């Protein structure tokens, strides 16, 4: 098995020391088929047990191992060592507070998630003992937006997340869109109170980087623009709805 020494420079941070983050380098003998996560595990097991990072599934479905590799947000379990240069810099996800080493504070995302009401809001009760019918075409409409693994690479890529601490962010908004498009849901207007607010879709200026880095091709940028369109149309047709209600 061919081996190659990869020099990994990792951004370290110890909140209990009064020092800012600093770079620490490790020389890691890598197997050909390794992913970056394997290299980090090697560091932790054999070189420096104090390195802290999140990981679990090793198959790009749990979303734990997001980090920035030479400036690009990536999943460590899907970044192949053979695609990396001999020296590589690994930092925690950008735009989010760093708690320790490669571990960032995700609270902002978790809060945002709750705020967009990510559950089915039906207009009438579903059938008692049967499924709500949904055609394959109806499923296809929202399926893409349901694939988000909450890895937060999009938050690291989005400059608006960095510039505006209140911005809900790509993944939370894309999830709102997923439910808006679900044929079983009628909650779009309800969610619009949050998604159409000043920290919602209108903070997005379609930089589009979120969709570029998304490992699951969710296209949160597209989702947000579609919500802007829907939000605008809803605003225009609001008088008709008021007329209906009265």
């Amino acid at each position, binding site marked *: 098995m061919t081996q190659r020494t990869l020099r990994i420079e990792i951004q370290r*941070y110890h*909140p*209990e020391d009064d020092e*800012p*983050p600093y770079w620490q380098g490790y020389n890691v003998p890598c197997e050909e088929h390794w992913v970056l996560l394997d290299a980090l595990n090697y560091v932790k097991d054999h070189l420096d047990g104090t390195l802290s990072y999140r990981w679990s599934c090793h198959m790009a479905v749990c979303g734990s191992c997001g980090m920035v590799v030479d*400036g690009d947000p990536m999943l460590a379990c899907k970044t192949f060592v053979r695609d990396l240069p001999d020296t590589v810099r690994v930092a925690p996800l*950008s*735009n*989010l*507070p*760093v*708690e320790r080493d490669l571990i960032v*504070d995700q*609270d902002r995302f978790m809060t945002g998630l709750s705020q967009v009401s990510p559950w089915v809001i039906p207009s009438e009760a579903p059938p008692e003992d049967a499924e709500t019918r949904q055609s394959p*075409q109806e499923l*296809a*409409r929202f399926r893409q937006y349901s694939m988000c693994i909450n890895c937060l690479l999009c938050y690291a890529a989005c*400059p608006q997340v*960095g*510039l505006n601490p209140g911005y809900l962010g790509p993944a939370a908004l894309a999830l709102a869109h997923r439910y808006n498009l679900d044929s079983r849901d009628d909650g779009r207007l309800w969610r619009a109170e949050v998604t159409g607010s000043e920290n919602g879709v209108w903070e997005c*200026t*379609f*930089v*589009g*980087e979120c*969709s*570029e880095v998304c490992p699951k091709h969710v*296209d949160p*940028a*597209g989702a947000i*623009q*579609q919500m*802007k*369109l829907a939000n605008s149309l809803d605003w225009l047709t609001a008088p008709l709805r008021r007329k209906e209600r009265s």
Partner: protein
Amino acid sequence: MRTRSYIPRMPVFWWIGRASYLRYMLRELTCVPIAAWVIMATVGLVGLVLGPAAWQGFLQAMASPAGLAFQVIAILAGVYHAVTWFALAPRTMPLDLGGRRVPGSWIQAAHYILMLAILVAVFVLVEI
């Protein structure tokens, strides 16, 4: 944020150093020459209203080297803005017809066709 988290600061020039961010800023900056062009067109309109002398003065300014350079920049900005906008349009307005997704390229093409149609219409109107 529980213990002493490190809060990274966005540098003012956050958009330098990444090609995609630079392209984004360029796209956003096209609004400046375009806005300036709108102001210029308004000035021209005012000139028309004020009379032949003002109008000639306006046309001369437009024909000057600076005026020409400005118009070239404005056109380039407008084209770049349109091209990037049209490229993004399919993601903003996905269309389903007869249960099938309309290809993004069709939506993009439709934008170009519409733009061309408007250009032709304006040209014809002007010429008449």
